[in-house]
């Protein structure tokens, strides 16, 4: 138990995490490419036409995974921010910073694909119902975090300020998730609930889950790659950086 704990702190040092992340990036990248390729094939050639929305419903295969990732990444960032605030660990703050652009990207994609799904089916690109509005607020939270982090020159202060914004914003996540239950919204309810109730055909569900796993692996690969850049930027004066083969060459 205690040796495990020591191990975790061992990896919380940027010098040991940098090469570990370097080894993990290609693994997750390959997993992501395979899963997304399979997911795309299933999306267009295997999943059946919907009885009501015809071929138009296929947008769900990017919309729902993107929306899930937009919320999930935020929770993971808030987790790292909390760890960083409590234990004063530099690496967890870097992890939060590395995830932010990817989270913002998926939030944007959820909104974008949602607009292109809403127009033909509902008849509107955008409405100010609780689900759409809270997802837009999530996008602003990501942008606010990135801007706040970037605006403060002192890294430690920037990390602290960003972490507090992240933790305050966590309240928005359950609001997004339960908005369709708590209030009348134009957005429909969840097709896959936390309790495991599913209201879609099995092939459609499997396709969506495979795409979601692909997006998940993609996020890990990109975030680890980005955290490597951030580690280098922040630790450029450390001795171990100078010994790296890619720096000496």
């Amino acid at each position: 138990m205690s040796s495990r704990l020591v191990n975790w702190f061992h990896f919380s040092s940027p010098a040991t995490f940098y090469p570990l992340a370097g080894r993990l990036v290609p693994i997750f990248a390959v997993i992501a490419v395979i899963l997304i390729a399979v997911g795309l094939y299933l999306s267009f050639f295997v999943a059946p036409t919907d009885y009501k929305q015809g071929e138009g419903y296929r947008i769900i295969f990017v919309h729902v995974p993107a929306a899930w990732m937009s919320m999930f990444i935020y929770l993971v960032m808030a987790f790292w921010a909390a760890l960083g605030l409590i234990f004063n660990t530099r690496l967890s703050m870097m992890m939060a910073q590395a995830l932010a652009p990817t989270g913002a990207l998926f939030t944007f994609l959820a909104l974008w694909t949602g607009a292109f799904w809403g127009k033909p089916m509902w008849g509107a690109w955008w409405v100010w119902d609780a689900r759409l509005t809270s997802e837009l607020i999530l996008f602003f939270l990501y942008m606010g975090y990135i801007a706040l982090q970037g605006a403060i020159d002192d890294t430690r202060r920037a990390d602290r300020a960003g972490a507090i914004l992240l933790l305050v914003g966590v309240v928005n996540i359950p609001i997004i998730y339960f908005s369709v239950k708590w209030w009348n919204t134009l957005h429909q309810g969840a097709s896959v609930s936390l309790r495991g109730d599913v209201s879609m055909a099995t092939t459609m569900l499997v396709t969506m889950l495979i795409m979601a796993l692909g997006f998940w692996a993609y996020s890990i690969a990109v975030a680890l790659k980005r955290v490597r850049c951030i580690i280098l930027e922040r630790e450029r004066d450390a001795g171990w950086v100078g010994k790296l083969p890619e720096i000496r060459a």
Partner: protein
Amino acid sequence: MNWSEFWHMGGYALYVWASFGVTALLMIAEPLLVGGRCRNVRRRIARLRRLQQEENP
């Protein structure tokens, strides 16, 4: 199913392809941008180190 029918997407071509297209575009662009950022950082640090070594050998 033939290809023209496939691209037509039952009349939802604009919406389906705009969704999948932009998603693909951004998810290809992001890793490339991150890769570029890493390359820049490495180059900058390598140059800095060289300069330091030249100053005090």
